[in-house]
């Protein structure tokens, strides 16, 4: 064990260094991409409900905007550090690049705990934040979005402050706004559908017909439900889903070997993706232990719930039949398990490609906001399909051509695209 404390930014840099070396990037490009291109640290004096004033610390980090305006969330977190924000902004750069969006990467944060703040005080923080950074964000510079402990409501306050200062309407200055207030339709479906768009392309590539496949999904939240829905539409059969049982404080797996019925299951699911155990049993589902999802004899696994779900200890339970793992959740596979899967030749669609549907939809929201013309849901999802497909194809081509593991290919293509943009602009 080392004495160096764990640091998210150091980790992100380490990851970058590895790929940068494999790409043989020159030192200047490396130096540029290893660190944010711009950072803003500012104080936010805020009037509290009791009339007193309190000063909060705010950050905005723009890691890179060679490919387009920076894009990334604003977090409210009591122990926010600039290193966390830096790391997250870098990840945003790669995420936008792998999805081939004309956007860079950014991130922001305020050290505060919304549990200790009234909504009014939170509004004051949002407005103070925008006042401090107004010259350096906006539709053509840097586009914030909701993140940890911030919501569409916070975004509305921010966009309103931005518009007040600039004396005009700039809905494209911020994404993640509620529908009808500059938000986009299709946001709910985007991540789950995006996952299956990528999965569909993977099947094509492996020359497997979706109707010949079965799958098992971990989780039954938003992402999982829409993934199951679309996967069934393209002909696949989901034999089991797992979900958290709030009452028993443990997960269960619900199995129907000839295929679950998404409509039926949704009818007995609470808002948090918890399926009623008793009602499922009545409908003829087998109720298995929570861990059972990973052992199912299926072609496809979709971990859509928690990080670190596929670990060194349970990766051995993954059936020989499994050909594809589509990572709907963030970081569902630990590095040790990832190594095993790579050895076994399982086709892994890595999380930041597989769940890029979310950020792609944010991009589409921004486009619509800039035009002040909002599409029907079908149009949004249609465009999402096209973009996810081409993003996937590019990554898998790279993997094939350079004989890379999909996860490495995704990183490589992302970093290569950003490096290329910097060079084309003559920055380095």
């Amino acid at each position, binding site marked *: 064990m080392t004495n160096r404390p*764990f640091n998210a930014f150091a980790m992100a840099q380490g990851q970058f260094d590895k790929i940068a070396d494999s790409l043989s990037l020159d030192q200047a490009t490396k130096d540029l991409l290893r660190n944010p291109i711009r950072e803003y640290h500012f104080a936010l004096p805020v009037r509290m409900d009791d009339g007193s004033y309190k000063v909060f610390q705010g950050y905005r980090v723009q890691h890179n905007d060679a490919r387009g305006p920076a894009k990334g969330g604003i977090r409210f977190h009591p*122990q926010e550090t600039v290193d*966390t924000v830096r790391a997250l902004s870098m990840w945003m750069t790669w995420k936008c690049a792998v999805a081939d969006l004309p956007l860079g990467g950014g991130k922001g944060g305020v050290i505060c705990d919304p549990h200790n703040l009234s909504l009014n005080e939170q509004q004051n923080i949002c407005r103070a934040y925008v006042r401090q950074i107004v010259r350096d964000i906006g539709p053509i510079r840097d586009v914030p979005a909701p993140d940890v*402990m911030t*919501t569409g409501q916070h975004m509305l306050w921010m966009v309103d402050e931005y518009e007040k200062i600039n004396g005009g309407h700039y809905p494209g200055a911020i994404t993640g706004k509620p529908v009808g207030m500059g*938000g986009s339709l299709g946001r709910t479906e985007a991540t789950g559908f995006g996952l299956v768009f990528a999965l569909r392309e993977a099947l094509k590539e492996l020359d497997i017909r979706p109707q010949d496949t079965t799958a098992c999904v971990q989780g039954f939240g938003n992402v999982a439900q829409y993934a199951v829905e679309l996967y069934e539409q393209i002909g696949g059969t989901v034999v089991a889903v797992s979900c958290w049982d709030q009452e028993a404080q443990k997960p269960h797996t619900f199995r129907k070997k000839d295929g679950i019925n998404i409509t039926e299951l949704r009818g007995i699911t609470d808002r948090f993706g918890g399926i009623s155990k008793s009602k499922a049993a009545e409908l003829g589902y087998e109720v298995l232990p929570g861990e059972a999802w990973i052992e199912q004899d299926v072609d496809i696994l979709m971990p859509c719930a928690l990080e670190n779900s596929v670990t060194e200890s349970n990766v051995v339970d993954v059936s020989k039949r499994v050909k594809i793992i589509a990572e709907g959740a963030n970081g569902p596979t630990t590095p040790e398990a990832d190594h095993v899967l790579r050895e076994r030749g399982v086709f892994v669609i890595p999380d930041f490609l597989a769940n890029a549907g979310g950020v792609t939809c944010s991009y589409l929201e921004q486009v619509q906001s800039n035009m002040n013309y909002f599409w029907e849901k079908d149009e949004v999802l249609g465009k999402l399909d096209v973009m996810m497909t081409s993003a996937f194809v590019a990554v898998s081509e790279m993997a094939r051509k350079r004989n890379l593991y999909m996860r490495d290919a995704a990183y490589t293509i992302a970093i290569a695209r950003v490096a290329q943009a910097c060079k084309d602009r003559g920055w380095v």
Partner: protein
Amino acid sequence: MAKQDQRVADILRSLQERAKELNCLYRVEEITSNEDCSLDEVLNGVIEVIPPGWQYPDICAACIRINDTVHASSNFDKSIWSQSAKIKVYGEPIGTIEVVYTEKMPQVDEGPFLKEERKLLETIADRIGSCITHRRLLETMQGMQGSDRTTPRRGREWGAILDLLRRTDQSLLMRVARKMINHLCWSGVRDAERLLQRFGPQQRIDEPDVFLESNQPRQKNASPSATALADEVFDLAAASLSDDEIISCVHKWIKQDRASFLVNTLENYHTAISEVADAIQRYQHAGHGEVELSHSTRKGLLVALVRRFLSDQLEYINVAKNYVEIKDFHQLIRRLIYPARGHGKTGGKGAGLFLAYQIVQTHKDEDKFLAEIKTPKTWYLTSDGMHDFVYCNHLEDVFSQKYKEIDEVRQEYPDIVQVFKNSQFSATIVKGLSLALDDLGDKPLIVRSSSLLEDRFGAAFSGKYKSLFLANRGSKQERLDALMDAIAEVYASTFGPDPIQYRAERNLLDFQEGMGVLIQEVVGTRVGDYYLPAFAGVAFSHNEFRWSPRIKREDGLVRLVPGLGTRAVDRLGDDYPVLVSPGQPGLRANATPEEVMRYAPRFIDVINLNTNKFETIGVREFLQSAGDELPAAEMLVSVYEENHLRPPLMGSVNFERDDLVVTFEGLLNRTPFVKQMHALLNLLKREVKHPVDIEFASDGKDLYLLQCRAQAPAKSTRPAPIPRDISHQRLIFSANRYVSNGIVPNITHIVYVDPEQYGQLATREKMLAVGRAVGRLNKLLPKRQFILMGPGRWGSRGDIRLGVSVTYSDINNTAMLVEIARRTGDYTPDVSFGTHFFQDLVESEIRYLPLYPDDDDTEFNHIFLTRSPNLLAEIAPEFAELADTIKVIDVPQTANGSVLYVLMNADLDEAVGVLSEPTSPDQYPADVEKSAITHEGADWRWRTRMAESIAAKLDPVRFGIKGLYLIGSTKNATAGPASDIDLIAHFVGTDEQRRDLERWFEGWSLSLAEINFFKSGYRTEGLLDVHFITDEDVARGSSYAVKIGAVTDAARPLKLSEADST
């Protein structure tokens, strides 16, 4: 002279108000003395002045018949409530005078008439007789001067009053005379003292003297000499005082005397409630305003009334006497049901609500938010109603129930309930209940227990006795039957095992239990088949579960639910009320939409008017089908769409289609509700001089106060005394910020995640592993017997350096969650206050404490926490590599048998974690839960005994058993009422033997579960948890075999049957 007349008139006027009989008589005198009037005029005049002289002037009429002539009031009619007197001339009756009431009035001395009124009537008849005699004399002896006209005493105006008194009320005359003599003494009139001495023995004119100071019979003092004494007194007064002074004194004393009958009734302990009620009614009807009473008389009366009807607790009386008026009791008795000759009270809940409402009424002008608070219509059945019921049905045996063993009590309880339900109420009570139902109508009712023990300071009987909802539908008889059935059940609950056990623990068994009952209309409206309030809940003056350091304890806490308040009162574990701190309404326990939705109420309690049942239904389904009909429903919900949660604009909710979450946003932000609650809590706390705990409900329009009592801390949230002289070795940590109240006793294990080491972990994976290790330990360590101590924010996600990444299920067995905020540089990080699963902690009563080890004046025993033997590798070998970061300390092993107590005191804002002997009472903080501890001990003791008997009866040959071991909570003496008995069976037999053995164990298991149920009230499917191990396990030390001969927490071998021949 005109001035003098005016003075007399003044006095007479005031007498007319206060001393109606006297006035009446005087008027009669005046009229009959007026020789200028004809006899007809005189008689008509008399008829007119009579009604005002009687108790109930409005319904009083009079009639004088002389020979054939009749003089009567316009409203005179024959009546059964009448009294009459003969009018005589020269001793011969020539007619009658009759007084009637046209309506029924309470019974007093002579039907509805007072004995004074009888006297008055006779005096008037006399006077009329004299008048007629006089006129006849005048007629026959023309020119002769009549002289029987009464001359005012010695010509002084106050003399007129005394004369009247002498004629009508000698005892009043004597009381006034006595006061005068006292007054003269105090004024320094020497002769008065001499008179006073003579006065002494005569003071009790109406009563025989009970004090026999000498052996000689005392001489009787006849009335005439008494009046003569009065004359002497007033002669002396006339010589010493001015007329003005005498008049004003007499005036004042007569006034004060008016309430004497009420005082007498109240002071006599033998008078039944019915008599007191009549006295109050008479007092009210007679139109006495209280303002006229002297301050001391009034206070005395009120205290007597409070003591009689509400409570004899001094704390209560002290407050109540300032808030009640006699008229309030007049209101109260109109809704009071009591047994004939009863002496009961309303009981704790009744008294609490009555007082709270009076306080609110008194102060409603101070704060506009208080003005609109109401209470539902309530009838009270007094506490002796239960005794009446028991005696009436010859069930006296039940009173000794409480001295039986608790398992016997539990066993017999269902029978008692049935017997009670099949018993009859006395006719008086049935009549009272019937009246109550007529008054309450067919609104659903709640029958609440209101025991004398309940709501006493320091003993929170919250939820121990029953409260039952009634749909109150059907015919009058059906409704009455249902009501009586419910009351019988409430009565029976007095003899249930839970309250008896609770009383035993608090040494309250010998208190003679009286159970009052409140019959209250349920606040709410009908929505479809259901009846429910729009919202309801409970509120506390003191917030013992704060989720932000900005919330002060005094900011209070409101637990709000839609529908009936039952879901806010109880901690349900799987459903959540919305929490608001009225002093800091902006700070919510749940900040993100995910949290808000996760902890939103999911169910709603209602009364189903079709089935006449209390039901729990899904709130979403209910709102979908009936949201439009529920008043103020839009105030209760937020609309969730596309990841956005927003409070709806009024009229914009589509209940059928919208995805609704109960958040109460509208109620909290757009109505004065929060301000109302804040004002109410503050007012009540200030006035009763104690933090309070109230229940409320709203029909969507008005806010109703349903209950109010002293906020008695629950067992786990009582302020703990903080010992001052703890040695350093025994002190593990101390805290002096954001401390709540409570005691976390008998901690046998500490899981300590070293903040420094955790911060040094090199990878995120390792940090996540710490979270998993904690989750594992949570399953392995004895439930609620260990505490978790760790850095910063438990339950962090994302940047998990801030705290260990756990979910609620990873910590749900801990007794306490401790967050350690270590200073880094010049910066002390925030702690989370458990916000990631705050409401789960609250509902499960897992306590929370933040530690700031770098603060001055705090202790943090780093050495104990880091250098004690670490069990981690032993109990969770898979996490052995985290041993530097996670310390698992077996407290008794490390500290010579001591266990850890965490004592928290919010009043002092101090907490300590100390090592102490679990069994030694003197080391245990004084007077805290001693009985609870012995009780807890009982659980493991009998379990151990039973485990030993099982082993002793287990035939090793027959079942193929090599050894039997005891592990877990029973072995560790930590078993609680819900604990299993964990056994390890070393099995070496055949499959058939195994089946037999399993069956054998199952028999034991079920029997023991039954015994446990009788002892503790916990229902379990079986009490034994047997783990089978094989030779192979023993050889490899796998499975539970690892416990045999283990270094720590080793299994205890049990002695098998003597038949053991192997």
